[in-house]
């Protein structure tokens, strides 16, 4: 199995390292043919407007949407979560997404960089909590019936907000497991999402 990391912008290197440590073949993909050749895709953290804009300019929207539509496993962290969401609040004007995940995401929901934080997070299906790094992070404001919430945090306004979700072959987190040495989210994507989506 080859896992592609969408290589337009963001912390591509960190996702490649995490996946490599899990023992899977990794390819950075930036072109149509490269995206068609991989078995699964990771959309990295980065600036969602920039990644979406580059995907439009280099005509990658249709190929990614069609691969998602035909069941390719995809994991998105932070900007990647926004790009997988069907609906985005506080988006830039005309900001598009690949879509696929039946969720509404609020961009920069936790605030600006001074509000970025790390915290211990309990995840469904994991015995020990993970250290989650949230950077100008989004949260999931609402989910469709097919979406399961894997983790949530209490936001500054006192509400419980989903920060890790899964819908079949699609996995998304508001936070950045690639910034820590803990590869459990990547392993979960490979072992639970990819291998059971075939």
């Amino acid at each position, binding site marked *: 199995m080859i896992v592609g990391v969408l*290589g*337009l*912008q*963001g*912390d*591509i*290197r*960190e996702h490649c390292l995490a996946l490599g440590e899990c023992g899977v073949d990794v390819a950075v993909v*930036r072109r149509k043919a490269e995206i068609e050749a991989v078995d699964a895709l990771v959309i990295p*953290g*980065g*600036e969602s*407007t*920039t990644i979406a*804009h*580059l995907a439009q*300019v*280099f005509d990658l929207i249709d190929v990614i949407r069609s691969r998602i539509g035909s069941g390719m496993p995809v994991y998105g962290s*932070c*900007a990647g979560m926004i790009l997988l969401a069907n609906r985005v609040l*506080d*988006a*830039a004007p005309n*900001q598009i997404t690949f879509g696929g995940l039946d969720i509404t995401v609020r*961009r*920069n929901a936790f605030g*600006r*960089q*001074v*509000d*970025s*934080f*790390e*915290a*211990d*997070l309990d995840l469904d299906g994991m015995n020990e909590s993970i250290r989650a*790094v*949230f*950077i*100008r992070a989004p949260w999931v404001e609402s989910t469709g019936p097919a979406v399961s919430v894997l983790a949530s*945090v*209490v936001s500054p306004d006192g509400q419980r907000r989903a920060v890790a979700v899964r819908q079949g072959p699609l996995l998304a987190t508001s936070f*950045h497991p690639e*910034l*820590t040495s803990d590869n459990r989210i990547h392993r979960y994507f490979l072992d639970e999402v990819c291998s059971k989506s075939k």
Partner: protein
Amino acid sequence: MSEITGTGRVKRGMAEMLKGGVIMDVVNAEQAKIAEDAGAVAVMALERVPADIRAQGGVARMSDPDMIEKIKAVVTIPVMAKARIGHFVEAQVLQSLGVDYIDESEVLTPADYENHIDKWNFTVPFICGATNLGEALRRINEGAAMIRSKGEAGTGDVSNAVTHMRKIGGEIRRLTSMRDDELYVAAKEMQAPYELVKEVAKAGKLPVVLFTAGGIATPADAAMMMHLGADGVFIGSGIFKSGDPSRRALACVKATTFFDDPKVIADASRGLGDAMVGINVADIPVPHRLAERGW
């Protein structure tokens, strides 16, 4: 659940999210919109671009908070702003305004010719300029969470950016080839903390993200700097001092992502109109070179 803000991981991590991107200098809300629409990963809000600071002279300071607020209001991407070297109160003001990154910048007139800002005291992360590895590691030791090679701002002449990136990269490569017992002297010679020198020798890279700046004016300039090891690019005067800022901004974004594909860069470089006129660094007397500020 214990939530902590302002950790090293959160500060350095923010810079990781900017990699492969272009950060553009803007002086008003309209330019900030153009930058966001072109795919900038962040904007640097400042009152005058370096080319104008250079032309007009005088003391260059932190921007008016109103101007920064206006830019924050119109874009959704991160907004950075500059404080003078050593001016910790300007930095406190910028942090209170909620900017996403502070550039302790030699482009502004230094406020302190001995000390830089103690950047560990802040929740907001800092980026600092460097012309060589020792300078970069001294800034990281003071708490900088991101480094940019200085180049020579406001010139449109990429030669100093090249010099500084090659210098930093060369010194890192040299460290990786040293025996452990040689690293002590290397640390002494480059006037950098031994622990950081050792860390760089082991990792073969800086412990923080390294962008490049100072004189980048074309898509090919941006791509060359990526080849030389930059994680991303700052473009100051190069975009909004050119004939068609919107197209040039997009072209530089494209070339930064596909820096290793000359066909994409060729396409991006077509019909951009006039580049900024620029000045040769060699024609600027040494005392007027901004890269000399900071130590």
